[in-house]
């Protein structure tokens, strides 16, 4: 009798073990489904089998899954690359922006990092610092050729502790975008030149619709607050990034936050800045928010989502420090865990080619190659110009492995100030002390 039970149980255990065993990272489904799964948009996910056939490299990025950028990448550019390199297959993986850092770090810890990633420029120091990235200036024999071909600003975001850990992929900054219908209704004839203009504009907007707002942003993190801090003449740390005291809590930074508080209390800034409400894009599209500051990617998105709405761009309003916004953009990095670094570097060369850069420019990604800025395409482009102009004065966020924590401290300080729980000076004193402690480590 026992034998019989064993005979019945054994297959069950086997089945359980099989379930466990037949589960390498790339197997797409359990159960009796065919292995290669073809989905529309021609993404082909194949299990990474023995490298008999072409080599597959994985490329993670934060292009929105359903976006013109992703479509361009997956339907035009990757096929183009694969045609030029029949021995390499590129698997593109879009990850939501808010999950990206966590997914990357946990994947590195699990040994399943991708070969390549398009990384926000501000994250490169952190990933380089944990030892996850390959120093491209050592690994790529022709690195200097690419180094000389791109803008020095975006390039410098790849530099950490003596090495370049990536190459710039695209660059951007934010400009002032306004809702023409709301401006017209309020009798506003031109976009704000200075911070002082904002006060009057807000009154005009509120007169037409008390539930409308002059400006909306989706949080108090550095990406949102820095343009105001800098344009007011303030800063976060000294140039060498050794301390925040005297900068983040200096009089100019404090003045920027006090201006914010005043605007918020008057109902000029939408409450979504504290975390909830109608998001800036929808509010802008629905004539609730008269202006936002945002990047070039907005154009293709708006065209797709809100075809009736036109975007009107101007420079960020100037304060004592000038009109300064944040430099954004992404770098392409190669992970140490990559099993096919040579093939991956081939893809890096491809994304830095004029061909790739121009194609991506069509969907709102500003190119990083010096030679392209002079090209007719860019010169005649409907909206690249204003961003390039803003980029002349834009500044970069602090390059430091602890940026994520610094940003959280800045975010919290902004929250405390706008909620009226701490005076600007007090909140920024505390924040500066916390950042000082971080920088000392």
């Amino acid at each position, binding site marked *: 009798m026992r034998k019989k039970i064993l005979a019945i149980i054994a297959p069950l*255990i086997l089945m359980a073990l099989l379930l466990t065993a037949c589960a390498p990272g790339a197997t797409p489904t359990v159960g009796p489904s065919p292995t290669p799964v073809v989905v529309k948009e021609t993404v082909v996910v194949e299990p990474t089998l023995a490298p008999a056939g072409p080599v597959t490299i994985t490329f993670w990025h934060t292009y929105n899954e359903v976006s013109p950028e992703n479509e361009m990448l997956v339907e035009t550019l990757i096929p183009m690359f694969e045609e030029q390199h029949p021995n390499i297959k590129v698997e593109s993986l879009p990850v939501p922006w808010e999950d990206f850092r*966590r997914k990357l770090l946990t994947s590195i810890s699990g040994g399943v990092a991708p070969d390549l990633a398009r990384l926000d420029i501000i994250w490169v120091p952190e990933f380089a610092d*944990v*030892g996850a990235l390959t120093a491209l200036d050592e690994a790529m024999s022709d690195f200097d050729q690419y180094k000389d071909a791109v803008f020095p600003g975006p390039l410098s975001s790849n530099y950490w502790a003596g090495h370049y850990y990536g190459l710039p992929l695209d660059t951007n900054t934010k400009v002032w975008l306004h809702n023409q219908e709301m401006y017209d209704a309020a009798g506003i004839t031109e976009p704000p030149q200075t911070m002082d203009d904002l006060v009057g504009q807000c009154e005009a907007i509120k007169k037409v619709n008390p*539930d409308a707002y002059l400006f909306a942003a989706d949080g108090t993190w550095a990406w949102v607050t820095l343009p105001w801090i800098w344009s007011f003449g303030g800063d976060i740390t000294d140039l060498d990034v050794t301390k925040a005291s005297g900068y983040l809590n200096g009089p100019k930074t404090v003045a920027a936050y006090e201006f914010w508080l005043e605007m918020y209390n008057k109902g000029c800034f939408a409450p979504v800045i*504290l975390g*909830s*409400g*109608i998001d800036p894009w929808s509010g802008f599209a629905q004539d609730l928010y008269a202006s936002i500051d945002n990047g070039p990617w907005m154009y293709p998105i708006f065209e797709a989502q809100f075809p009736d709405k036109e975007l009107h761009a101007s420079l960020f309003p100037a304060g004592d420090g000038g009109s300064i916004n944040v430099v954004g953009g992404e770098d392409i990095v190669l992970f140490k865990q990559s099993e096919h670094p040579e093939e991956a570097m081939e893809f890096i060369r491809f994304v830095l080619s004029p061909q790739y850069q121009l194609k991506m420019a069509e969907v709102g990604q500003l190119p990083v190659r010096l030679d392209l800025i002079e090209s007719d395409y860019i010169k005649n482009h409907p909206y690249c110009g204003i961003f390039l102009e803003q980029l002349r004065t834009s500044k970069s966020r602090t390059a430091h492995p602890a940026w994520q924590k610094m940003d959280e401290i800045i975010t919290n300080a902004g929250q405390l100030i706008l909620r009226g729980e701490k005076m600007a000076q007090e909140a920024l004193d505390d924040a500066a002390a916390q950042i000082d402690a971080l920088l000392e480590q």
Partner: protein
Amino acid sequence: MRSKITGDSLTAYAFLLPGFLFLAVWIIYPMLKALQISAYDWSIMPGQVSEFVGLDNYVRALHDGLFWLSFKNTLLYAGVTVSGQLVLGLVVALMLDQITKGRVAFRAVYYLPVVTSWVVVSLLFKYLFNASPAGLINYLLVDILHVLSAHIPWLNEPETAFVAIYSLGIWKGVGWTMVIFLAALQSIPAEYHEAASIDGASSWQIIRLITLPLLIPTMILVMIMLTIGAFQAYIQVALITGGGPLHRTEVLLSYMYDRAFTDLDFGYAAALSYVLIFVVFVISQLQLRFLRSEPMY
């Protein structure tokens, strides 16, 4: 005789084996592993050394204001939602017990939120409690019912954000308590009530003096189950407020998750998990005592 027992045991173990294999690999081993991790400043990066810190992570929790806040928030969530579900579920059950027609239909309707996914209802409530005048709750309370004079940015303040989170917890759970109470009510022998009404007791007196006392064991059981359930709260917080503003709506699990997967502080997160496991363990001991003293219904 002896060999028979062993034989029986072997048969039984054979039946238990496949299931226990799963439990051993995915629950028991992780429990032990968590204990180990919690004693380290755990580095998840390959090739980096984790430092043994003994009980430091637990001590750290004691001094961590955010941990205590998330603990307090969890207790408050439990307190408010458990009593809300208990009272409303009981009231609905008592009403359903009285009526003769449509009981099954009502029961189905009230039970609907219970079977709906947390992700869906959390997003739904986030939408209902939108800060703008166009948010449905704002519109109902201000423009229709005139209960409030101004539109509230519900999710921007911890107090009002918890109103949204609590209402969701109660709304989703009332159906469950109702079903349990209804079953208990219908198992009360009809003679009790008949005897009382012959004595001239009013319906309210019958409920107060006979029905409710008979329901006390059920109430305790429901209360313990709901409390254990309340400690599982994560999705509603993660999706409605994300723990914000300023981590002020964090509950234990959302805080633990944040430490683990935003800060990658696995050691500390594991220690926090153990604190939670301990709390739930204590509550579940009460529960087990009640399960043993059945029958309940």
